[in-house]
């Protein structure tokens, strides 16, 4: 904030270093949570987003951010892959295209294109099916939810992505959406209504938390200590700290050990605000993901349970870099459950 103020006062100029600082923000919301000044605190993230918008207007953005936004603009996803491949993750599954089911299941960018994200999308959708949830998926045409594009300050691109999605969802008569990623959840819930997209939006853990009773668990499972990593866009941004914990606590054999920083104090994995793709944040020893991996290890847990594909990717890398892969496994919650049900 001091730098933005200094820039507005003409005391410093926009520069590459300033841009690096601004775009390294993951929009995790921890500053908002801990700022003691009422009113002002709620404007912090908007101020940062507006600041980044000014860098974009001046064309002064780190190369990684530029390339990320270009891929989003050209391909509607951060991987630069064709839109028609979006539903490839569901190949070989029984998931039906969305027609008149109760929910649209939106796998998001990572769930659609990233290998690890695809595994998570398949796992979560399998569990939804096991729980008897009626859902279908779109088989092409949808775009990125745009959540992190909006956070990066590229408002026009976000609105374009959102408009394309809402047109498609509205044409398909979508009323209820289950998202894989908390980022999509945040955007659909908070930003899309202003752009004509009014849906009942749920993160998949919010649906499954109340359907755990429908699952049949295997008897005498091996007891395992797990720690849960709160994703910023489900936790701090949308105040749901409990759906994933409800799911985990219903799993026989799983015991939860909380990390020191949990719920509203949770440390971000470092992947938000486009940082998963832009790499503006360092991946060194003191990077958020590696700090988080060490924090998880300190609990004695054998599993870091996650409910966000970005967190899964970031933390898996960090666990490997920290040399903890033999002791600590990053698992998405539905994967833990799928391993233990009949």
């Amino acid at each position: 904030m001091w730098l933005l103020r200094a820039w507005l006062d003409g005391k410093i100029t926009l520069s590459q270093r300033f841009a690096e600082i601004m775009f390294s923000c993951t929009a995790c919301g921890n500053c908002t949570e801990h700022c003691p000044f009422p009113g002002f605190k709620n404007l912090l993230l908007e101020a940062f987003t507006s600041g980044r918008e000014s860098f974009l207007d001046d064309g002064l953005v780190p190369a990684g951010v530029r390339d990320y936004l270009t891929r989003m603009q050209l391909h509607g996803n951060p991987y630069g892959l064709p839109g028609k491949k979006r539903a490839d993750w569901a190949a070989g599954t029984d998931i039906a295209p969305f027609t008149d089911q109760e929910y649209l299941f939106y796998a998001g960018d990572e769930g659609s294109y990233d290998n690890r994200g695809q595994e998570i999308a398949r796992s979560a959708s399998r569990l939804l099916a096991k729980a008897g949830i009626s859902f279908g998926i779109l088989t092409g045409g949808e775009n990125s939810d745009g959540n992190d594009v909006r956070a990066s300050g590229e408002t026009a691109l976000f609105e374009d992505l959102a408009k394309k999605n809402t047109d498609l969802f509205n044409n398909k008569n979508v009323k209820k959406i289950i998202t894989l990623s908390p980022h999509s959840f945040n955007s659909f819930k908070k930003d899309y209504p202003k752009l004509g997209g009014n849906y009942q939006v749920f993160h998949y853990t919010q649906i499954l938390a109340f359907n755990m009773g429908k699952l049949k668990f295997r008897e005498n499972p091996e007891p395992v200590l797990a720690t849960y990593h709160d994703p910023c866009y489900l936790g701090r941004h949308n105040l749901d700290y409990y759906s994933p914990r409800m799911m985990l606590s219903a799993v026989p054999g799983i015991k939860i050990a909380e990390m020191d920083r949990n719920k509203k104090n949770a440390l971000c994995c470092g992947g938000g605000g486009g940082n998963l793709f832009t790499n503006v944040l360092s991946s060194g020893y003191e990077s958020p993901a590696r700090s988080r991996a060490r924090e998880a290890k300190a609990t004695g847990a054998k599993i870091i349970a996650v409910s966000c594909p970005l967190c899964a990717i970031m933390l898996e890398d960090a666990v490997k870099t920290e040399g903890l892969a033999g002791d600590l496994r990053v698992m998405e919650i539905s994967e833990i459950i799928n391993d233990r049900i009949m």
Partner: protein
Amino acid sequence: MNDFIRQLAEITGPGFVSGEPEERYLYSMDQGTMPPVSPDAVVMPGSTEEVQQIMRLANKHKVPVVPMGGGLVLSGLTRALHGGIILDMKRMNRILKVNPKSRYAVIEGGASEGMLQAYLKKHHPELKHSMPDAPPIATLAGNICIHGSGHLSVLGGFHSDMLTGMEVVLPTGEIVKSGSCSVSTDWFARAPLPDLSGLFLGWSGTTGVVTKLGIRLFPSYAHNDMLIFVCEDADLMPDVISRLTGVQVAEDMTPWMTPKPEWARGFLHINISYGAHSKKELTFKRNLLQASVKKYSDQKIAGFLPMPPPQKSRFLKIPSSDLVTFADLRKGGGFEYVGAIMAIEHFAEAYRAGLNIARTYNVSYSMGARIIGAGHAMMFFYAYAFNRADPEDIKRAQHALEATNTAALEIGGIPWKSELPAQKQIIDKMDPGTFNLMNKIRSVLDPNHIMNPGNWEK
């Protein structure tokens, strides 16, 4: 300087050194009224050895070094007045040891108040340390080195009194230890050795860099309570404070006087915090406190404020958030206070001087004090909020602070963690022999005069 920055990067790694305008701007000031001064570079060491190498390098090239903890001192003590580098200690933030029986902790020089509080809560809930009312990111080393005070100061005195030992890197790069840790593996006390810790306390970073320190811990009670004593006559305050501290049960005692909220205007309040292992003990302590000032309650010229439990919980919150609320009074994020250390018998004079100054300079004020020990002294504070975006408002606050420093010195007090103009005022009043000795010590410890130059100078 570029070559110097490159050499710093060889010591700490490139991610922890910057000579870029953005970092230089951020480290040019604190939230107080002192004008910004840019350092040439900022460096964040990760170990005592790195600090040692940095000091050797800076000493060789005669580059000024300003050690910095949380950067929250508010009086501009961590500005690089003669350029050079800011040595930001925040990476050295480990809690190295807690001895629960001898009740002390050993921590690194950049460990924060909040970190130790959280650590004790998790691992030693039976222990606590004296938290100041600074944001939790304030460092223990910084607070101790400025003779800070906090929520156990009636019990344990200044935070520097709670220091049990130090590891310090001298300006010339040698590592020295003070206290029992210089002889033993235990960090239990500064006694019975020559007390070298005094070479680094109150010097505003002009004598060395604290890399480790030992701090006393205290019992954390299962039952905690507080009372608020109220009176209208400032002249009664020294006797009231003396009586309340005389029964030796309070942990913290903080008088406060503020024009807002309206119900508080014109009254002098004293928050008294105390704790106990059992309810019975708590009641006993409450009775002792109430009996100590019965003389005034019986005369109905003062008394205890009835407090419902929900209201009490706000006052029992540590650190208190009240000052933060006040800090934002004028919006724009500017806040500074003069804390003057003085004898408690000057309470009424100090209070009236504060009212006068607030009227004269038309500033939003809040006044209060923290009692140190059994009424041995107090840190009387005058806080002024200002809008950082309004130069006139900053100027008004600056004038008010200067007038307050002058008034505090005239009363017989000494401005605490004093900003540059107040340091000069103190030196003018100081015994010349004392100032000469300070300079001699400094020239021995820091022959090239690289440590936070500009401070404690005529």
